[in-house]
């Protein structure tokens, strides 16, 4: 279990230090600073073992969060907790920065007391936490005894993530499918590896204790229904077949704690009582039949020892009616570059010496289009015989569809006690596909 949690700024100064167990001494704080933050070689592993003590760290901008333990803990659990901790802090005071942490250190200690107990993670649901850890300290004194006991019973109750008696005039529901697509492609256009990691994020403003049911084009569900349909009515089999084409194979997925896993296991249906406000309903990963929104075609030619010609074509590969945004192509340059000339038809391109790359930015681009950049790179002859490693060309973008092909089929809301039905709820669905590590070798 987690023995302690430290937050450092980029210099390695300790901003927050909370020790949960006696086996973590004060020197652990310094050990991490010396061996990781100030290490000569950049430490890339998120887990560092120093003197039989394990440090799990995540970095948010310039801030290091490190969980420390002497025991053999589940590393995935620790990281899950650290990410959760980041989410909680973001929900409380916005961006995680040194200044924000310094301004809210009392709050952070209060949160740490609540979400970790003797190193065991507790309820880290922001909605629930906000009911009893508030930033308005004075107000909490005015809480009545009943209110306090209500909070207690709710937090310790069966549905710890939602309190009772929530009432909205308009019952609204926002559903975002956020995906990031990762790709590594060979210069010839062969896909070496590709996967999509996606999240379904919900914002629910629903009254009472609604029961929700979420459906998507998961292959298993569709096949099952298709079979069932085939058994019941022969006529529907055609329809089932066509919908089967659009179904996707989800490799693995994880759910928010509100989802009834037993039901998912038996019926493959996602049903839950949602928390109030924003939360992440599920996370998933797919590797098959990914729609790659862009194709990068690189052409690098070395002209003698002192010159390099680069030509890069990008092609958008989606419906022409859709618009991709925030496109950025990063073309690495050799380490002995002494000058660069760039010509591009669309967008803006610039040689960034500090990053050893040409950065080409395009604001918008419709589907089924192509664009091209060409650059002449002058090189300085060096006496090193080392060859340039030719790092891959990477790309960033945002597209308004889900590259995995995931579709939300339905989201039903049932509330038996209050008198509103599924039809009264206003539902919004949005798909955003972003680039993860989207690279093409050159």
């Amino acid at each position, binding site marked *: 279990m987690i023995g302690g949690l430290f937050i450092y700024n980029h210099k390695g100064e300790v901003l927050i230090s909370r020790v949960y167990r006696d086996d973590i001494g004060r020197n652990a704080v310094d050990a991490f600073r010396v061996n990781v933050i100030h290490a*000569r070689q950049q430490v890339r592993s998120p887990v560092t073992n120093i003197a039989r003590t394990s440090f799990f760290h995540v970095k948010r901008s*310039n801030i290091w969060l490190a969980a420390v333990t002497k025991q053999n803990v589940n590393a995935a659990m620790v990281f899950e907790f650290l990410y959760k901790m980041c989410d909680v802090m973001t929900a409380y005071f916005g961006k995680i920065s040194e200044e924000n942490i310094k301004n809210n250190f009392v709050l952070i200690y209060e949160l740490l007391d609540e979400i970790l107990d003797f190193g065991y993670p507790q309820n880290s649901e922001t909605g629930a936490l906000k009911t009893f850890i508030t930033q308005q300290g004075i107000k909490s004194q005015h809480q009545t005894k009943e209110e306090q006991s209500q909070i207690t019973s709710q937090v310790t109750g069966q549905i710890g993530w939602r309190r009772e008696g929530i009432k909205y005039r308009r019952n609204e529901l926002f559903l975002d499918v956020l995906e990031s697509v990762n790709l590594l492609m060979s210069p010839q256009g062969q896909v070496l590896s590709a996967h999509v990691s996606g999240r379904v994020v919900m914002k629910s403003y629903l009254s009472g204790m609604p029961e929700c049911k979420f459906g998507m084009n998961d292959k298993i569900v569709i096949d099952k229904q298709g079979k069932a349909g085939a058994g019941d009515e022969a006529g529907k089999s055609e329809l089932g077949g066509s919908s089967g084409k659009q179904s996707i194979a989800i490799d693995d997925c994880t759910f928010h704690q509100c989802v009834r896993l037993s039901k998912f296991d038996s019926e493959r249906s996602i049903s839950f009582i949602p928390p109030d406000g924003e939360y992440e309903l599920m996370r998933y990963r797919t590797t098959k039949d990914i729609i790659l929104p862009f194709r990068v075609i690189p052409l690098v030619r070395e002209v003698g020892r002192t010159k390099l010609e680069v030509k890069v074509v990008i092609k958008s590969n989606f419906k022409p009616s859709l618009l991709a945004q925030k496109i950025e192509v990063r073309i690495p340059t050799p380490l*002995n*570059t002494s*000058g660069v000339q760039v010509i591009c038809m669309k967008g803006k391109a610039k040689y960034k*010496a*500090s*990053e050893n790359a040409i950065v080409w930015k395009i604001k918008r681009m419709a589907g089924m289009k192509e664009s091209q950049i060409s650059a002449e790179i002058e090189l300085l*002859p060096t006496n*090193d015989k080392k060859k340039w490693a030719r790092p891959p060309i990477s790309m960033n973008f945002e597209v308004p569809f889900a590259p995995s092909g995931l579709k939300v089929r339905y989201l039903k809301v049932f509330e038996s006690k209050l008198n509103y039905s599924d039809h009264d709820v206003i539902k919004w669905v949005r798909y955003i596909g972003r680039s993860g590590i989207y690279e093409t070798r050159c």
Partner: protein
Amino acid sequence: MMLTQSDAQKDLHLQEGKSKEAEIKRINKELANIRSKFKGDKALDGYSKKKYVCKLLFIFLLGHDIDFGHMEAVNLLSSNKYTEKQIGYLFISVLVNSNSELIRLINNAIKNDLSSRNPTFMCLALHCIANVGSREMAEAFAGEIPRILVAGDTMDSVKQSAALCLLRLYKTSPDLVLMGEWTSRVVHLLNDQHMGVVTAAISLITCLSQKNPDEFKTCVSLAVSRLSRIVSSASTDLQDYTYYFVPAPWLSCKLLRLLQCYPPPEDGAVKGRLVECLETILNKAQEPPKSKKVQHSNAKNAILFEAIALIIHYDSEPNLLVRACNQLGQFLQHRETNLRYLALESMCTLASSEFSHEAVKTHIETVINALKTERDVSVRQRAADLLYAMCDRSNAKQIVAEMLSYLETADYSIREEMVLKVAILAEKYAVDYSWYVDTILNLIRIAGDYVSEEVWYRVIQIVINRDDVQGYAAKTVFEALQAPACHENMVKVGGYILGEFGNLIAGDPRSSPLVQFNLLHSKFHLCSVPTRALLLSAYIKFINLFPETKSTIQEVLRCDSQIRNSDVELQQRAVEYLKLSSIASTDVLATVLEEMPPFPERESSILAKLKKKKGPGAVSAGELEEGKREGGELNGGGGGGERPGDTTAMAASNASTPSPSADLLGLRSAAPVSAAPPSAGSLLVDVFSEAGPAAPAAGVHDDGFLRDLEPPTESSDSLLAEGPGDSDSAPPSVVSEDPAPPLPESDELLNKFVCKNNGVLFENQLLQIGIKSEYRQNLGRMYLFYGNKTSVQFVSFSTTVNCPGELQSQLNVQLKPVDPLVEGGAQVQQVINIECLTDFSDAPLLNIKFRYGGALQNLSLKLPVTINKFFQPTEMSSQDFFQRWKQLSQPQQEAQKIFKANHPMDTEVLKAKLLGLGTALLDNVDPNPENFVCAGVIQTKAQQVGCLLRLEPNAQAQMYRLTLRSSKDTVAKRLCELLSEQF
């Protein structure tokens, strides 16, 4: 330089506090900028070129790779501005690696600067050469620099740089720096007016003269005169070179160190001057300090310690040595820890000098106190070293007791060494062997974990070899074993000694056989496997010693935990011993399990272990010398006399320890098998049908020549016993510590064998040559044992003996052929027959050639055949002796020599040596009982030469007078020469 660097830093805006990523970004940007500036098409002015090269250098020093800009740096070299040139050179010495293709351009630029006559440019160039110091640089400039160094018109500062630069080149590639013609002029730099030049030059001269001392011999007198000028100067004379009122301390130290490369000057005047200097330095140390500053005392003490080191090195001025010792004695109580440390260290070397040994001994109380109270462990270590060094017969008991009591609280890091030292001192200075046994058992009790195998092997060897101590030893170990918790090493010693000599204390009802057995067996289950194996052997010995314990012991052997032990060694022993005890009759048992014969005399393996532990580098010169002296003494002690077996004789034997499995019976190892009397040996072979290891022993005994001779007291030599396993694990001996130059050493080796016939002739990492020889009348037979110490076989192994010059007609040497293949770890034997035709003085040369891993090894050694080997002792009365003595009264018939004793004068040792010589030692002949008188006849084929010998020791002066009279003058001379090296 610092200014320009901080400029670069400012330029790069690299302030503390920014993150690493930011720094990398900034540097990438700057590198891109510099690259664009260095692009071929634009011409850069010198200033900006310097600026960017400087930035590159700074970026490199921040830890980033720089792979361009070298050309620009080389261009800077041709600039005329000092700063630009300096940055160029700096960049090159930091960044250009020696095999760069630019090196030719750089060399060219350096060459230009060297010939420029501009002193600052020359200095820069010299610094660059010294900083790079590559072989290419040496090739290019090794000829040039000496010329600059000795040229009359070179500036002083350039000379300084040139001297240091040359030193650097000499250190990297000594073969390229040829000093031949420059030597005398370089030496004369010691007379230079500029002190800086002298200081720089002396470093060079010291280094050069260490390699070829003869060429630089002239520097001694110059150095002495320079030193005396400095020492006698007032503190204000040398203005710039006076450091806190001490005139030129660095130069003085270097001069004194240079003088340590040479023996004391022969020229009386020079020597007088030097002694005067040293005296002045010692006097100055007594003066009150001129300054309270620590730098003042540091400088003064540095000179003082160097002076003392020189005095110790000369080791010929008793007066100075004693003064130095007294001075160091004062430092022993100084409050500076470093001074105490240095004082103890120097004292260690002083203690080994015969002149100051006594003086050092006066500080014993202080040193013991230091050992007890010193806070710093390294100082305590030095104190222990010093105690070890100053120990002799008179204070051994006190020192050993102190070291033992310190051992209980000693630092863990030095315990093992302390244990070895105590063991060595106890053995070396043991007068009373019960004291020795007590000490060692105490040692095992106090620091059992740190007692190495060698130590307890040694105790057993000594106890076995000395009859008078056996009973006492048995009693003591019996008492020691009664302690509820005793160390395993104690059990081992106890098991062995009770197994051998338990009968000596069996009379006492408190230590009756059964009590002894039960005591040993109570420890059995707590011990490790080797110890258990040893105890099993002790049990079977008990059956022999005390038949009444037979049934009990058989019961123990028969029980499942022994006879079905999972360890194969224990099981085998249990089974075999059980069978042996039930089948064999008491007679057979008594023969098989006879008391162990005395161990052959060997070097104390502990000593070798101590040396090994300290490592060749760590052993100070004094220590080594000490070791040599000791070796010599032990060497002399061998071969009979008062302590026939205990003092370790052979200074170079590497099979000195029985391997752990070599126990009482020694079933596995060859050592004890062959050490047993021949009859028992063959019996053992029968009983256990282990023919393998016994074979070589049998081979020797079968030899007709040997059978004629009376069986040697040591029925087998350690060499025979040297099984393949032994040679690997055994510690290196004294000889192996020295590298093996073929000839220079062999004279010394020859002397080692004058008074003895067996031993290790030669040893290096590859090969060990053992020797065993017998002589009868004018005939001799020598067995050479070539042991391959490696695991790889030697190919085309061949040996030849040749007799140089007239020896050919004097000596007839026949060599039996030897197998050309020597397997790894194996030993081959070669027989040499020697016939003495007439008297001779030289020794035949043995040449050995073989291939080891493809490389040809070639060795030449002198065979230890000396004229005295053919001595036949002649007994005669006092009257006869003097009659013959007078007959040989012609001047050429007498050879006389007066010489200083190399070894302590021990009557018994002397007697043993004289007997080893082959003559008869005649008692009651000389009116003075201190004197030794010997007589013998040298048998040659041509004639018989009678010899009379008289040795008169003078204990006060530690001198001997040796007189030899012989019917043949050459014989007398040769014998005199040989013998004068022995005492």
